[in-house]
């Protein structure tokens, strides 16, 4: 029997073993669960273009080249020659080749990226000498105008964090890292497509996979039109040369930011090309000038005298003063026993509201502030009412504009002083600095511009923003944010602000045939040097809008350690207004004084480790 059935049994047993082996291969996801035969290739849409408000192209794309190695294909070559060709250290080159080899001997690795097209032209002629190396084209940003870099930002290759936080990105892809590039990343990048290819056993692509039916075509990126006026931006940047500070110009009727300058700053183009890493390190390590810090958006200063305007408005709204209210100033006044607040006004000056504004009388606004607070039963109620008025101008919180960076500033509330002094242990006198914009209040230059905008609009503002159109569609609608001050209270204040320029502290800002409304500020400030608090030269600030009767532009200027508001900030603001409204500058002497003026000597003072004088 065993003879007859031997082969039958062997057949049955063999078949059973085969089927078990096949089941273990085919029915369980074993070690071969990736389909090596399909190559997925991403297809990138061209990154979106960026224009200025007048349609001038600011940001386009340019080809750059990557030097690629396929280690398997290399033969012995002269590393010294190659390192000289691409301009990197020989050791560095050897390390990169080694790590490429470790990654894969068959797959391409990038040895050096972002090689300029000029260098590429030169390299292309030599690279054939090096088997296993080739150059691959890649699209990177081209920042055509080297201005408004703090607004536009820059792109760079995704890092591990980007990849971890968004699975869309893959190694080597570009992502917006700052500014508009970052905030509008989703619009600017479009959506990459996928193409699938059938590979053969040598990893060569032999044709489309599944007749390209699975391919996903890329989605075109959006083009952006900024609110920035690049000519005005360029001009404003030139005015802040060799100074530190910020300039913000806004169109009050829309909230569109015309100009946003931070000085010193960087240029977006520094983040492109072979030197981008070194450039970034240089920018990052400059802790004195902090070029990556946007002073217009992130620097929180005491607002200084422009805050007087808000106090006047609140006084009018609360009914504690009217335009005829007068106070006497004795070159200052005692706001409490043994507590004197000095004022640059002469002894015995009697000011009404307008005069108080244009002469920037500390006494006048201290007394107004005291009335505002004391109107209520307790200082807490009074201060909170004041605080709410201030906040209705967009101070003390993020403005919600379309850039990722910014600061809240600070507007104190009663609980802040309760914590600081104890419940009911403080009064209007204790917080009197609020009246003149010193003390606890902190604002950023863009917040200053925004509240000036609210005054220019007589009681409302639009959220400042930087993008006007996405693909020629003005689909961004903004609502009016009304302040807590009634419209009729603004006129007298604006008259006072016009007087500031006509006959007050900022006569230098006067422009022929244009009514400019403004307010200077001179802000005390301190620095810690070796643990010791030292006072520095005052910051020079100015807010302005023009024409006063129908404002087209609001400007806020902040010049660090510039001393009087009228010395730097007011002339700069005035020049920007003139440039924007008339298109040219008649006061060439003022222009050249501002452009050529330098505060570098002032900035060096605290770093010389010797005593220095301020407010020269």
């Amino acid at each position, binding site marked *: 029997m065993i*003879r007859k059935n031997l082969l*039958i049994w062997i057949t049955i047993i063999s078949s059973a073993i085969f089927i078990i082996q096949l089941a273990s*291969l085919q029915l369980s996801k074993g070690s071969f669960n990736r389909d*090596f035969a399909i190559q997925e290739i991403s297809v990138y849409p061209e990154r979106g273009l960026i224009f200025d408000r007048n349609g001038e192209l600011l940001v386009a794309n340019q080809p750059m080249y990557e030097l690629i190695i396929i280690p398997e294909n290399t033969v012995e070559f002269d590393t010294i020659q190659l390192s000289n060709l691409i301009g990197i250290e020989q050791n560095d080159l050897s390390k990169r080749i080694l790590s490429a080899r470790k990654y894969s001997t068959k797959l391409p690795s990038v040895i050096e990226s972002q090689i300029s097209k000029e260098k590429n032209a030169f390299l292309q002629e030599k690279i054939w000498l090096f088997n296993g190396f080739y150059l691959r084209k890649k699209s990177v940003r081209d920042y055509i105008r080297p201005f408004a870099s703090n607004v536009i930002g820059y792109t760079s290759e995704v890092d591990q964090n980007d990849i971890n936080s968004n699975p869309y990105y893959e190694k080597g892809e570009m992502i917006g890292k700052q500014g508009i590039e970052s905030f509008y990343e989703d619009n600017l990048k479009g959506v990459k497509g996928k193409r699938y290819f059938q590979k053969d056993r040598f990893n060569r692509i032999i044709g489309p996979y599944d007749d390209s039916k699975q391919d996903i075509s890329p989605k075109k990126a959006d083009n952006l039109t900024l609110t920035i006026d690049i000519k005005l931006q360029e001009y404003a940047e030139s005015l802040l040369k060799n100074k530190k500070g910020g300039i913000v110009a806004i169109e009050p009727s829309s909230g569109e930011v015309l100009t946003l300058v931070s000085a010193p700053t960087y240029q977006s183009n520094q983040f492109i090309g072979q030197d981008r890493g070194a450039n970034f390190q240089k920018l990052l390590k400059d802790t004195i000038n902090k070029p990556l810090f946007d002073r217009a958006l992130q620097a929180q200063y005491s607002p200084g005298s422009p805050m007087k305007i808000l106090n006047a408005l609140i006084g009018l709204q609360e009914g504690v003063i009217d335009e005829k209210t007068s106070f006497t100033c004795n070159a200052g006044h005692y706001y409490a026993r043994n507590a004197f607040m000095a004022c640059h006004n002469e002894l015995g000056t009697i000011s009404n509201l307008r005069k108080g504004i244009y002469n920037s009388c500390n006494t006048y606004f201290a007394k107004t502030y005291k009335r505002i607070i004391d109107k209520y039963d307790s200082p807490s109620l009074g201060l909170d009412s004041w605080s709410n008025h201030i906040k209705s101008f967009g101070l003390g919180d993020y403005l919600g504009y379309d850039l990722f960076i910014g600061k809240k500033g600070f507007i104190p509330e009663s609980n802040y002083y309760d914590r600081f002094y104890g419940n009911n242990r403080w009064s209007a006198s204790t917080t009197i600095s609020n009246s003149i914009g010193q003390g606890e209040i902190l604002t950023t230059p863009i917040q200053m511009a925004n509240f000036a905008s609210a005054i220019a609009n007589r009681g409302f503002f639009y959220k400042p923003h930087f993008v006007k159109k996405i693909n020629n569609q003005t689909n961004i609608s903004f609502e009016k944010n009304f302040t807590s001050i009634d419209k009729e209270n603004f006129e007298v204040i604006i008259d006072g602000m016009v007087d500031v320029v006509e006959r007050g502290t900022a006569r230098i800002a006067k422009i022929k045939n244009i009514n400019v409304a403004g307010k200077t500020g001179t802000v005390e400030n301190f620095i810690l040097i070796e643990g010791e608090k030292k006072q520095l030269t005052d910051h020079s600030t100015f807010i302005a809008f023009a024409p006063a009767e129908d404002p087209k532009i609001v400007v806020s200027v902040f010049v660090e350690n510039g001393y009087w508001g009228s010395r730097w900030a007011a002339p700069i603001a005035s020049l920007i207004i003139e440039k924007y409204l008339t298109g040219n500058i008649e006061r060439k002497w003022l222009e050249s004084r501002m452009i050529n003026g330098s505060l570098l000597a002032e900035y060096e003072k605290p770093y010389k480790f010797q005593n220095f004088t301020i407010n020269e």
Partner: protein
Amino acid sequence: MNRLSVLKYDVVSIALYIGLVSFGIINIYSSSFNESFTNLFNVGSIVGKQVIFFFLSLIAFIFILFTKSKFIDNSTSIVYFLSIILLVGLFIFGVERGGAKSWYAIGPISFQPSELAKFGTALFLSKFLSIIQTDLKSNKDIIVVLIIILVPIILTTIQPDPGTALIFLAFIFPVIREGLNLNYFYFGLSIILTLFLTLKFSFLVSLAILSIIFFTYLIYLRNKKFKISLLKLIFSFFLLIAISFSTNYLFDNVLEQRHRDRINLVLGKEIDTSGIGYNINQSKIAITNGGLFGTGFLEGTQTKGNFVPRQHTDFIFSTIGEEWGFMGTSLTILLFSILIIRLISRAEKQPNHFRRIYSYCFASLIFFHFFINVGMSIGLIPSIGIPLPFISYGGSSLLIFSLMFFVYINFDSSRLKED
């Protein structure tokens, strides 16, 4: 022919044959698919050639059906000696392909005589075993059988085509069936086990296990009274130990590196997916890629990418695995098993000795091809280049297997009328 006369043929086997060949053509079409040749009947394409040989086979079928079985009975030695002559002639007229002189080429037609030798050996061996006087207990007859089988083995080995030579070991089965002492079979199994143990582990492990088996067997035999001479048993035992002892030396010094690699790969000693392991590894990837239902006809990405070398010939099973999935592979295995078992059981009913042994030889040949080819494709057996009968591309193979099959059909149909 009337209804009854159709029914006298083994219709089930014919259906299995047509099914397997058709399925083979579909998979050859897919694995050799290429945008420029889409026509199934294009003579220039690989699949076109296979289709032509299928038609040739069907024509031969008609002739063979109307041939008297007796006529075939008497032509066995002609086929065998013709094939031996053709094998010898290869050394003079043969064409070298892939390192082996195993082909005749006349114009566009090429022919592999080793395929014919399988048929010839099956016929001639069956004839010899069916002779009344033949006694497999006599050493003289065993030597004759050995010579019949060894001649084609030697001739194909020195071509060199050791894979094909190995196939002739399939004739062990009919010889055992016809009365060869089963101890030869057990001894053969013991040699394979010894080789496996020595190569996979070591001589000492092999020695230990062989000793355990030997002494267990001795105790078992003591209880059952001796049927086998103790001397022979002890001789076998020491022979196995000698084989085991010399295995590593032979392995390292006689075999070529590629053979060592193939064996090591299956033993799981070397995981090399780029070099020698490439074929089997790619075949396994393709089969795994198929999953339960497969990627579908012409949809296999591994198949399209030509990842598996020789995919339309020796590795056709990987195409089945990828495009038809577990369903396709297990069905294929099932069809082969049914065919083999059916051939054997119909053979057992054959009153004519020669025809019974022939059918048994044919079943053994199919089994051996099937076992080695599928086992290799799924990584259970070292890579040996032999085709999967009826399925793999190859005109000689298809034609000869078809002829052998039709002869079986002829024999089987004449089983009831002893003419």
